[in-house]
């Protein structure tokens, strides 16, 4: 997030404190590392580096909070592995010990959506000063926020609604669209190595959202965000027409807008797909 979408990071840094959540920097953190690519290359390296980030949080006496489904997946899975397999924990502890770090795997990792949702819908509603009435949103959960479901904190139901509820508290409407829980197509190293396949998956989602009359996408993952921001221009180029121009809004940007923050404070002026027409409706 900090290296790819500083504008989204800005919105997180502005909105969470306004909700009473104090953020502390995870000094010296590295790449989570990416669950699709790095874990596919060397699971042992991936686990060791993920555990280092978790160890830094443990040392600071906090749980990790992340705004990216990929990081979330990495941390959740990394914790599960060392909790279930004592030999893996031992291996990781030995590696971390040799760089001077102690690790007990006693921390947790949370997605910021989980933290915001825990505030409760009614208290959140009281924060809304600029209701986004009439805005139709295509809600995109992303994969690693929800799956594997056994390792996630949500109610064990087939179709989750927590993000829809969080979107609707802003006054916007979450539209029903086909294959809502479909992947964005970016993960697993597919975006890096098989661009045509990757963007074709995203196109399917975009088509489904547009067909349902969505005015924008709301996502909660830096990689999904990249996928939807970047692929629309790629698709237009391929088609030779400007068919895809659905603004891609990160959740804290949407919430911040409805809480009365200025678009510049939420990084909404720094998007690949322009958000101006959408903003003009509410400013």
């Amino acid at each position, binding site marked *: 997030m900090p290296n790819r979408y500083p504008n989204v990071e800005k919105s997180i840094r502005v909105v969470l404190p306004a909700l009473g959540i104090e953020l502390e920097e995870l000094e010296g953190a590295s790449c989570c590392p990416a669950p699709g690519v790095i874990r596919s290359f060397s699971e042992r390296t991936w686990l060791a580096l993920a555990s280092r980030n978790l160890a830094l949080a443990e040392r600071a006496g906090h749980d990790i909070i992340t705004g990216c489904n990929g990081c979330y997946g990495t941390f959740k899975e990394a914790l599960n592995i060392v909790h279930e397999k004592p030999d893996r924990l031992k291996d990781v502890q030995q590696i971390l010990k040799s*760089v001077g770090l102690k690790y007990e795997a006693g921390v947790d990792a949370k997605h910021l959506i989980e933290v915001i949702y825990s505030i409760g819908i009614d208290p959140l509603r009281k924060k809304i000063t600029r209701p986004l009435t009439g805005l139709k949103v295509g809600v995109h959960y992303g994969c690693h926020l929800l799956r594997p479901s056994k390792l996630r904190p949500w109610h064990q139901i087939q179709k989750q609604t927590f993000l829809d509820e969080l979107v609707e508290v802003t006054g916007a409407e979450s539209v029903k669209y086909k294959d809502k829980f479909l992947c964005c197509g970016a993960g697993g190293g597919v975006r890096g190595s098989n661009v045509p396949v990757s963007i074709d998956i995203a196109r399917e989602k975009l088509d489904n959202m547009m067909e349902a009359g969505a005015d924008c996408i709301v996502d909660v993952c830096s990689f999904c965000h990249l996928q939807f921001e970047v692929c629309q221009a790629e698709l237009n180029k391929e088609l030779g027409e400007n068919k895809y121009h659905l603004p891609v809004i990160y959740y804290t940007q949407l919430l911040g807008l409805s809480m009365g923050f200025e678009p510049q404070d939420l990084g909404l002026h720094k998007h690949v797909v322009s958000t101006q027409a959408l903003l003009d409706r509410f400013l």
Partner: protein
Amino acid sequence: MGEIIRETISAGDMDPTFIEKIEKAGADRIRTCLSCGTCSSVCPSGRRTAFRTRELIRKALLGLREDVLSSPDLWLCATCLTCLERCPRQIKITDAIIIMRNMAVKEGFMLPQHRKSAQKLLQTGHAVPLDDANRDMRRELGIPEIPPTVHSSEEALAQVKEIMRLTGFDTLVEGEGTGAKQE
């Protein structure tokens, strides 16, 4: 009439230790696969390519190690985890794919673009390091120009590099990266 080409699997192509290794590495229920095809039917990559998860798992079960590890199809999984959720045998399919990918990389099958991200991680501690444009944007937005990550601590970066040395990541991803059949 054209010649019908039959693909025959010979015993020599089958490595019975292959599936044992996958099982041991974490895909513990993989032998219970009944080839029902649920995994293929929910696969977003499979919707638009010839990639078939069921076929991949079947080949792994048959021990067709070389075939599986050298196939570019192994890299079409977007790790969306839908197959893992839906598998009636509760096989950790995505884990199995990741295990096979680890084996493939160990044998030198790595796509050049993937090797590039791995090398970036090795050099900077991030698979996606900060570039000039985003550095400018950070300054403009009034957030720390260099994030308080490994990017602003040489000590932290050294720690991360040492971990990658200890786990053999440096030797694993070095080189140019034209993994055999992957090109």
